[in-house]
């Protein structure tokens, strides 16, 4: 006879067995809020970005997952093609991102309101709607120089192109290599040369000609554009540039910053403000920097500074992505960013003392105080035009006598690129 205790014991045993066979209890956690960001920053720039977003992650619980690659444009294109773009992509070229706006791949940035001046919002607008936004800025039209080397030839800081050429000649005569240049940059090799041509077009012919050219409404063979190439070509020879044209072609843009090399190196380096961290890192703490900067010299025309920026756009319109963009374009994040020494800010509310050294602080002030700016022309051009421009620069360095053919080729590209 079985009493009432039997079934209960059996049930108890079953429960025990069930518990023993369930090593891990299953729980249903709420889905984490994640924003995937694909950008161009690596190494120091990536660390700076991670430091900037850390407070945002702590306060909102949103997980920002960043992936950086120098060839971000190609990677974004492939991922869009696969139907798997990140929530946010950050590129150096608004032209690349706005191409996706035309094919309705981008979400408008309604609700993202950075406190920037209008000229900083314009590069991200399509038909008056904000589709992309500058996250961090750079001041181009800048020449870095070695104070001691310039002093050695008893020359002041050049303010005109003629003075710059004269100082270059003096330095060469004194046995100092005047210029550092490096064009290598993986799939975008050649872009440092496009900056030269753009600065020369701006300085020689002014912003109206510049705008027309950038928008594809002026021939590459026009006198104003051809003159810019030829002016740059005056500096491109074996004696003026460290290592000559072969070195210019093969040296990485990030390794050409050799102004501080006392024995070799060069006296001048035409680079954007983003190399500030590189130069600052080579100066011992507390020491007076052996370098400084001056604005790209003019041709008796009002100075217009060329600027650039890393621009973000949203492929998946999530609230978390929108929150992140609002944070990144806010004064708090912008201040953190400039503290890292890897960026300037287009936000005029960022206090000057946020910049960590005197040289960068002056660049930041020049950026926010510039009366006339123009965004990097090649970055605004359609992708095809920009790639052709970059390759044309390499071709020109390789063989300056082929300028006519190169400009003719660029005109052919222009005819179909816009």
């Amino acid at each position: 006879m079985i009493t009432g205790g039997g079934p209960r014991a059996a049930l108890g045993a079953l429960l025990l067995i069930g518990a023993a066979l369930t090593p891990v209890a299953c729980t249903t956690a709420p889905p984490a809020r994640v924003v995937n960001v694909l950008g161009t920053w690596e190494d120091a720039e990536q660390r700076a970005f991670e430091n900037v977003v850390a407070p945002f992650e702590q306060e909102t619980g949103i997980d920002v997952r960043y992936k950086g690659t120098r060839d971000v444009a190609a990677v974004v294109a492939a991922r869009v093609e696969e139907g798997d773009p990140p929530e946010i992509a950050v590129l150096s070229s608004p032209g690349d991102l706005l191409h996706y706006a035309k094919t309705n791949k981008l979400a408008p940035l309604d609700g993202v309101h950075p406190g920037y001046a209008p000229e900083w919002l314009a590069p991200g607008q399509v038909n008056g709607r904000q589709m992309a936004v500058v996250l961090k800025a750079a001041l181009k039209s800048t020449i870095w120089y070695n104070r001691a080397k310039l002093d050695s030839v008893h020359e002041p800081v050049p303010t005109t192109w003629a003075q710059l050429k004269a100082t270059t000649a003096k330095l060469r005569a004194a046995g100092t290599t005047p210029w550092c240049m490096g064009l290598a940059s993986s799939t975008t090799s050649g872009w440092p040369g496009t900056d030269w041509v753009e600065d020369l077009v701006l300085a020689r012919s002014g912003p109206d000609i510049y705008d027309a050219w950038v928008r594809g409404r002026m021939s590459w063979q026009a006198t104003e554009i051809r003159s810019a190439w030829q002016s740059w070509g005056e500096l491109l020879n074996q004696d003026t540039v460290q290592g000559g044209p072969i070195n210019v072609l093969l040296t990485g843009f990030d390794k050409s910053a050799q102004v501080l090399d006392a024995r070799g190196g060069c006296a001048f380096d035409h680079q954007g403000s983003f190399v500030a961290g590189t130069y600052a890192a080579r100066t011992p703490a507390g020491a007076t920097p052996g370098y400084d900067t001056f604005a790209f010299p003019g041709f008796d025309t009002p100075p217009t500074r060329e600027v650039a920026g890393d621009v973000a756009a949203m492929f998946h319109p999530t609230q978390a992505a929108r929150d992140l963009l609002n944070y990144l374009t806010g004064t708090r994040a912008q201040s953190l960013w400039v503290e890292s020494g890897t960026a300037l800010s287009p936000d005029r509310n960022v206090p000057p003392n946020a910049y960590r050294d005197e040289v960068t602080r002056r660049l930041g002030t020049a950026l926010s105080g510039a009366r006339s700016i123009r965004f990097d022309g090649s970055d605004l051009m359609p992708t095809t035009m920009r790639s052709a421009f970059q390759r044309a620069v390499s071709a020109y360095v390789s063989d300056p006598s082929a300028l006519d053919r190169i400009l003719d080729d660029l005109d052919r590209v222009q005819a179909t690129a816009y």
Partner: protein
Amino acid sequence: MSSTAAGSIAHRPSRVRPRLPASTPGRLVALALLLVLALIPVCTLSVLIADRSRATTAELRDRRIPAALALDQAAAALTEADRATATSLVSGAFSLTGPGQDYQDAVKRANQYLTVAVDLHRDDPGARARLTGVNALMVEYTIMVGLAQTGGDGPLSLANVFYASDLRRTIVTGLYDQRRTDLAEIRAARSTWWVGTYVAVPFGATAFLAVLLLLFAHGYLRRRFRRRTSPPLLLGAAALAALIAWTVLHAQSTHDRLAEAAGRGVTGQSALWQARTAVHEVVGSTALDLASGGVARTSDVKAGLTLRDLAEPLPSVGDIEAVRTGADPRFGGLIATALAQDRSVPLRAAGARALTALGALREAGERARAEAPRGGTRDGGAGAAMVTDRSPEHMSGAADDAEAALTDALIAGRREADAALAEAADDGGLTVGGPVVCAAVLALALAGVLARRFEYGRLR
């Protein structure tokens, strides 16, 4: 009042602790029920162990390991393409033939391997995104080499080959990053509870309790039924003990074989593929140095592989002979990683041949740099011949010898790893045998106990 009292009396038994059945038939039925309950987890665990270990092995063999190795293979093939481009440039043939047929073949293989890798990572969104990016860069790479061809043998060709080569390093870095992730996942997969040695502990404990219960049941029946033994119960206990031994041995064997194939084996094969990549890189870098006249590759692209990555320090003839006969390598590097703790004769012989070829590769590289004209060459000549010639004392020839030896080492290593994986995948009949034995034990236990219950009824 009386109804309240009656109610309280009616509830009282439910609060009393359960009592054991007082009668012998009741105890026999309870015993039968307990035996059934004790055998259920034993059978379940046995089936699960066999099934999960088979599934894990299949996952590693058919997806995870080939996926990781496909990344190494793609990197090796792309670097071979890069080497072909660089040697063609320095030889002076570039303006006429471009990077050549070797480049075309290597690029095709790189694309095939990448396609395989993408396919095998299809269930991993993160990996898929990363490989989509790598695929885009591969296309850019071929475009850059194509652009280089338009520049003949001038500086622009050289520049574009440099840019392409830097991009190739970025691609290889991306592939290696994913491979590192894959290897970590392989380690995690082969360390899961179901294929670990510790899985035998809960199973053995559960089954041992069931055996004890069977023996207790047998003892109880002997006491109650004139000390007669119960053959079904004893047989059931013996069968259960055999199942314990079978399952524990299977778990141990699966764990060991997986550790061999998915641990040391896959690490060794990955190292050998990286060694092949390094051999191509050494030749390609030397060729580009000669073509540029020694302009340093000064972009920030991660540094490529060098001879030091292959073997550091380069072993002497005596050291190589010791390695061939089974001694542990007394040097570092990728080849040492592949050979460490592996006494396989074919693998050791191939490794020794590869190490010998590395010596020739280094000497040829040094001579090539010494003989190269100042300012570089993109039109053949003495230094270039030291790089491009296929005889064993020249770089390309020594690299071919090293690559052939590494290929043999890969084949030998692969054979061993496949055999270990096949053994791990073999359940030894446990998937079918486990449930059968369990069912038999259950039947024997019930037969042993319930037979006495019926016997008791007849006696009454």
